[in-house]
């Protein structure tokens, strides 16, 4: 009994310590930001002329600091590869293809069924809006791709027995990563179109769409892997 109280006290202490750290860091980071404003001022003053993006965040992650985006995409791909090949091996994948039942409605909750049916088209619409309009409004490829993955989960809630080939999704994700690597090489690093407004906008939209689909495939693989194949034993 004493031990459980001790553990509870320790939990309280850790949470309060974390809260104090968070507040401290908030205050500290504000002061640091004020001391070196030159780079921030450059980004905030010239991003529209340089990159043709109305959203300064998109200008930074797709143009000024596109290296960061490339490595972020690489990180997601590596984690997908880890999830598929190392954590479970390939044994569950074979079992899944045998166990394929027909969908029947009685098993599902009526509320979930109807509400997902209503929400689904809006989910797709907002996802594509966020991806395609990511350079002008808040959002971008990553967020839109994550919403698309949520739509995939919603589809799972309605059709739990539907089969989805994860190998194709994983291959598509790798292929998209190669394209994501090559597009900035031709647009940004060549420096031929740096002042051209229309080319810059085409570049931003293309990159957002590519990143969106890559994140969709990657998160989709991870979620399906966790939700589907863990159930079988």
């Amino acid at each position: 009994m004493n031990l459980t109280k001790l553990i509870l006290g320790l939990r309280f202490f850790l949470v309060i310590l974390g809260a104090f750290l968070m507040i401290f860091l908030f205050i500290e980071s504000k002061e640091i930001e004020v001391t070196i404003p030159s780079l921030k001022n450059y980004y905030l003053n010239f991003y529209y002329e340089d990159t043709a993006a109305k959203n300064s965040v998109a200008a930074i992650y797709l143009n000024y600091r596109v290296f960061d985006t490339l490595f972020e995409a690489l990180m997601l791909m590596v984690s997908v590869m880890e999830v598929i090949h190392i954590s479970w091996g390939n044994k569950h994948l074979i079992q899944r293809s045998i166990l394929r039942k027909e969908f029947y409605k009685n098993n599902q909750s009526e509320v979930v069924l109807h509400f997902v049916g209503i929400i689904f088209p809006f989910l797709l619409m907002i996802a594509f809006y966020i991806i395609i309009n990511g350079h002008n409004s808040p959002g971008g490829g990553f967020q839109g791709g994550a919403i698309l993955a949520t739509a995939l989960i919603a589809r799972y809630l309605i059709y739990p027995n539907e089969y989805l080939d994860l190998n194709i999704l994983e291959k598509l994700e790798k292929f998209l990563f190669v394209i994501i690597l090559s597009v900035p090489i031709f647009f940004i690093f060549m420096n031929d179109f740096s002042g051209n407004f229309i080319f810059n906008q085409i570049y931003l939209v293309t990159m957002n769409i590519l990143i969106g689909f890559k994140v969709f495939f990657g998160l989709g693989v991870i979620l399906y892997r966790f939700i589907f194949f863990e159930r079988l034993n």
Partner: protein
Amino acid sequence: MIEAFILLGVVLFALGTVVSNSLRRSIIYMGGFSLMMILSYLFYRAPDVAFAETTIGLGLTSLLYLVALRRVKIYSICYVDNTIETFSDKNIHEISSIFLNELELFLEKEEEMESQFSYSTRPLAKLLDQPEHDLIIYKEKDTLYLYGNSSDAIFSDIVHFANIIVKNDYEIKAIFKDTEDLYEPN
């Protein structure tokens, strides 16, 4: 003023997540925590990050945790032996090879439960007062005593199949903690 409310909400929901007794409630509190984080991001004028937090933190993570919670159920088993002073790896290996491995397999295959073992040298009467363990196994010479609740369906399954699970010639006696009935499977 709004800033203080939002940050206080973040801390409160975090406390709720950590302290609450039920895991399901913890997940819901974590959703609330994400919501407060989204509000704080919006307050600090970072709508992009707020979007990412909405989809990843509030949507996908909560869903994933709820699904994981539905999959994994843990059955807690405590093995008590008063003749040993401290448990070494050798002791545990010996006990496992006799019947604990079989028990683990049984729980995994038949009941779809994860088993969690703990080993204790404390007196039996003290352990019986605590409700933490679903099954307490106590060995005395050639007799195995199984302690559990009569309302526990998994415990009655284990008692029913005890002769198959335990390979050696142990005598098995099952005692229901709440009704104090004695049951011998042989």
